[in-house]
Every structure is written in C-alpha cells, then in structure tokens.
C-alpha cells in the first residue's frame, strides 16, 4: 500500500491490516511520521513528537505480533494525545511553563487502555494552557494553525489534536472537553469529536481544569473511528470516583462492547436507525449564530427531515445562561485545582525566590500565562467569603436549572440538534485580546458540559468561503452509541460533498 493509502485507512482497517500482517505497525507509523515532517512546520500541532520514540513503540507491536501474541483492536495504530493527558516516557506539560519538563510517573487510565489495545502513542498535542481557551492561542509554547486554512485558529483547547488529525499527521487523537474543547476544534477542523457523558472515561491522569466538567473525548475523521476509540478508553475506573459504568460498557477489553447505548451492532452503522424526533432550539440559533452557520444548520435539519426524522422546535431558556454559569463554576474549580503548582515537588520553580512567599508568588506568576491567571483570579473571587453564595452558589443553582431543563426536553425528544459554534473558524489573533468575546463563542457547547450529557460534533457543511461548519447533537444519558449511529448515517449519505448541501 502506498503511504497515502495507509494514512487513509480507518482505525479498524489499519488495526486489522496490522493484525493480519498486511502491513507493519512501523510502516503505518512511518507513513504518518513522513507526512508529519512535511506539514507540521506550517501547523504546529505538536508539543512533543519524537520519530524514534514512535517507531520504537511501533516496532514493539510488530515484535509482539511476530511472537504470536494477540493484539488489540488498535493494533499498531498511531494515536495522538493531548498534552494534558498523562503519558509515562513523554512530557505532559498542559502547554504551560509551570509544567515544563514534567514527566508523569503513571499513565492516564485512558492512555493505559490505548496501550493495552495496541495503539502507538503518537506524540503530545498542543492546547490552550491547561485547557483554558477556544483557539489554542493560549499555549505557552506556540500557536497551532488550522490545517484547512492556516490563517485561522484550529479551535481549542484541543486544537493540537484537531490539527494533527485534520492535517493527516495522525489518524485520530484524544482530546479533553471541559466546555467544548473537543467539539469546537473538531468543528473548526472538519472532524468528528465526541464529548462522552461525564464519567464515561476515567479522569485519572487527565490534568484537572474543572473536575466536575472535564472528560476525555476522542477526535477522528469518522463516527466509526471515534466509536472505536471511545470503546477502548471508556469504562469505570477504581482510580476515579466520578467514573462510572453505563450503557453496556461493562465488558472491558471486549471490542464489540458498546459503551453508552444500544446493544452491539454491525461495524458499519450506515444502516443504523435514526431518531424519530430531534429537538431544535431554532430561536436561540437564529439569535446567536452567524449566517453561514444558520444556513448549514437549516440544511442539516433538511437532511434529517428528508430521512424521516421529525424536528420539533424547543425553547432553551436556562441554557442561555450557560456561559456565565460555566465560567463561574469552571474557574472556581480551576483556581483550586491549580493550587498544586507551587514549585515545591515538580515543574517550574522561580529561581529568584528567597522566601516561601516569593517562591509561591513568583513561581506561579512566572509559570502561568495570562489567561490562566485571569481564570484563577476570577475563581478565587467567586469562592471568597462574602461572594460565594452570590456567585458560586448562584451558578450552581442555575446549573441545576440547565440540567433539569435539558433533562425535561430530552424526555420528549431523542436528541437536540444545534450548531457546535456560532461562526466558522475565526482568524488567528481576532479574539485573543478580548476574553469575554472568546468565552461567548462557547455558548452552544457549554449546556451539555454543565448537564454532563453526551454530545457530538460532526462536519455538516461549509461557509461561503469554504470553511468547515460543524453541527452538534446532544443526547440523553448513556446515548453515545446512538449519537454516533446518527452521525454515521449522516456521513454515509453526505460523504464526498463536504456536508448536507
């Protein structure tokens, strides 16, 4: 097979080819590495990618096959990892100076499961520092460009993972989603990105940003690639008290198990059933989204309608408060989660400090970027004496409302269709000076995060000037498999024409 066609294989095809000996893991890795050498300088998707390291890991898979060992469902398949997910043998910096050179002593549970399934870790991808951002411009190391249009942002915070896959450097990647950080970059880079239900994937080894919201999510070129990754990394974990079983995910290691949803079906889900009713918050979309996005939304609605899905208009009132709610809760948790970076046990330590106070304030002052400081300050304030109830307390109350509103709506419809972002990818630098503007662009992804429900972003069309536009499906509890089924159907009937039009 040519190197191009090797890179075009789906994850399951690639793994099957490796297991059957049609291709070696080294060949597969080499195909991606060679391509990466050409395109990466113009993209900047990775914070860490070592050719030798990747080839060595691939070589080990090939040797295991040669010894006759059974290989897992990701045998020899390279997977890029967002750099806020702990990997032994590689740095894990969260794109922050404060973790420069940090090498975890344990793999994240999701990474361990990837390795057990035979995957080859393919470097660490760039992100907004600690996941705080929507453009990957907040990395302490470098920006990442959108491979589809290099003057545009790839989205964030999992922008490096999205750009790595969209530029063909890796077939799939892990990201993390706190308020949209998997879905928004997936939308900006023309990929499928799944935010699993909260707790579906262990957070053990995911460096915490906002613990009640964080979840690791797969990003790939198709719903089926994303599904395969989800099936590998999901499941309850004794190292994370908030992880949980659900759906039919309780058969670890079984490649046919289907976390979050209906019973095992065929690998090709192109004939999977579509929902009978989807909710559409049309007024919210018309008010909040740009014309390109509204148009693609209407086209997507049309596709579902044409395939027998009833579309029912819904009102989401509480969800419109999601941005303010999210920033209070996420930043409160972040301010506490980031207290451990104090220069004492790992990571950056200010050299000039002569007193303990200086050690703390300088290490953190020099080690954190501006956006992280902004979040820490806001989070410190909303938890402080005298303000706690009015800010953090109120945000929790509104969060409850958002959750119960979505619960109520989803008891009447099987899913909610809405855009992932209000606009197509914006130019680099456009919003980096206006944090509030940046925050507001997360409005459509945040409600699912606050409610903890699964949501998937999928490529649905293009703007007038050819930029990708992603649509999003929210689902009920344990509905990941259904969401991916629906996206799979959509893909199979629209593949090749770039969307629903």
């Amino acid at each position, binding site marked *: 097979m040519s190197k191009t066609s090797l890179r075009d294989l789906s994850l399951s095809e690639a793994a099957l080819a490796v297991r059957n000996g049609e291709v070696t893991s080294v060949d597969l890795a080499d195909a991606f590495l060679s391509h990466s050498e050409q395109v990466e300088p113009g993209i900047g998707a990775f914070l860490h990618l070592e050719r030798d390291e990747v080839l060595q890991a691939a070589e080990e898979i090939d040797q295991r096959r040669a010894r006759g060992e059974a290989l897992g469902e990701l045998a020899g398949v390279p997977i890029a990892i967002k750099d806020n997910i702990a990997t032994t043998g590689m740095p894990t910096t969260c794109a922050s100076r404060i973790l420069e050179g940090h090498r975890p002593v344990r793999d994240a549970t999701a990474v361990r499961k990837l390795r057990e399934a035979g995957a080859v870790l393919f470097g660490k991808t760039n992100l907004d520092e600690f996941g705080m951002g929507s453009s990957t411009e907040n990395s302490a190391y470098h920006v990442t460009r959108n491979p589809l249009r290099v003057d545009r942002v790839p989205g964030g915070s999992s922008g490096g993972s999205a750009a790595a896959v969209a530029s063909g450097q890796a077939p799939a990647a892990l990201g993390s989603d706190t308020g949209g950080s998997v879905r928004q970059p997936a939308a900006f880079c023309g990929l499928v990105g799944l935010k699993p239900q909260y707790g579906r994937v262990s957070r053990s080894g995911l460096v915490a940003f906002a613990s009640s919201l964080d979840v690791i999510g797969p990003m790939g070129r198709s719903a089926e690639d994303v599904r395969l990754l989800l099936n590998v990394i999901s499941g309850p974990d004794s190292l994370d008290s908030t992880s949980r079983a659900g759906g039919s995910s309780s058969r670890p290691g079984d490649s046919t198990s289907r976390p979050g949803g209906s019973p095992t079906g065929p690998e090709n889900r192109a004939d999977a059933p579509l929902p009978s009713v989807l909710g559409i918050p049309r007024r919210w979309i018309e008010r909040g989204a740009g014309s390109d996005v509204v148009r693609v939304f209407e086209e997507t609605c049309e596709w579902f309608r044409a395939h027998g899905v009833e579309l029912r208009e819904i009102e989401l009132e509480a969800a419109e408060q999601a941005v303010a*709610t999210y920033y209070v809760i996420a930043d409160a948790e972040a301010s506490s989660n980031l207290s451990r970076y104090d220069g004492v046990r790992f990571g950056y330590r200010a050299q000039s400090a002569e007193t303990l106070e200086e050690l703390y304030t300088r290490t953190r002052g020099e080690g954190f970027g501006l956006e992280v400081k902004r979040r820490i300050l806001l989070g410190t304030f909303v938890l402080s004496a005298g303000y706690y109830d009015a800010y953090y307390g109120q945000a929790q109350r509104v969060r409850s409302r958002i959750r119960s509103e979505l619960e109520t709506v989803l008891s009447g419809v099987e899913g909610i269709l809405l855009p992932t972002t209000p606009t197509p990818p914006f130019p680099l630098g456009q919003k980096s000076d206006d944090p509030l503007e940046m925050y507001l662009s997360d409005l459509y992804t945040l409600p699912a995060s606050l409610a903890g429900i699964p949501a998937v972003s999928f490529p649905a069309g293009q703007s007038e000037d050819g930029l990708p536009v992603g649509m999003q499906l929210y689902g009920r509890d344990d509905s990941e498999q259904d969401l991916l089924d629906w996206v799979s159907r959509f893909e199979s009937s629209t593949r090749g024409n770039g969307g629903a039009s």
Partner: protein
Amino acid sequence: MITPDQVRQWARLARLDLPDPELERLQGDLDKILEFVRALQDVPVESGSVPDSVSESERGNHPLPSVERPDEVAPPLSREVALEEARSTSDGHFAVPAVVESEAQYERRTGSAGGDSNENTVLREDSDSREPGSSGDSNL
C-alpha cells in the same frame, strides 16, 4: 467597578505575582467578565441552600451508594521517584526557603499541633468566619 486593590487581594489569596501592567490589564478584563457574570444573579432559581454535589440535582452524576475503595495498601513510590522532579531537596525531604516566623504565623497549621515535639512546630492562625461547627461559633 473592580478596584486594583481587589485584584491584588485575589492575587494574594491565589499566590500570584502580578506585575503592574498585567494587573492593569486583568483588572479591565475581570471587570467586564464580572459584569457579564453578574447577570446570573437575576436568574430566577429555587431559593434556599446552594446545590452542591449533595443535592438531588447533581446526584445524576453520582450514583449511590458512594464510591469507596477497600482499605488496602499498595506499594508507594520510591523516594527517588517522589523527589525526582523537585528543584530543591535536602536529606530526603522537599526543601523550601525557610518558613520564618512572620510568615508561618498567619498560616494555619491545620490540626497539626502536637506533632513531633522535637520539631519547631509553626502554627497557622485560624480566623475563618465561614467555618461552621467550630466551637467558636457559639463560643463568642
């Protein structure tokens, strides 16, 4: 309007050194963000206590009964690994600039009084008004 002193106070609580230009910029940003966030306070909600993870609403994320692990010991890290990334160590310890009394005084040493008596125990003051159930509540 947020004042520079407020930002300084939060930075102090969060142990963040903020050079003046940063402080000025963050003050402006935070002012805008907080104004936006304040709108939350007009959202009609069920009054009463703050829903935290104990409340019905969040229980959806937390299956009952609670998640607990058996009381079993696993091997800890070797000390070499534990100290590996520390930039300063001393005789098997993590090392920090000496905690001098003026600093130590206002830091509460949580319930650690009565540790090894051969150590120079430094105590942290506790005057937190939000602490419920400390006998102080009714001892005033």
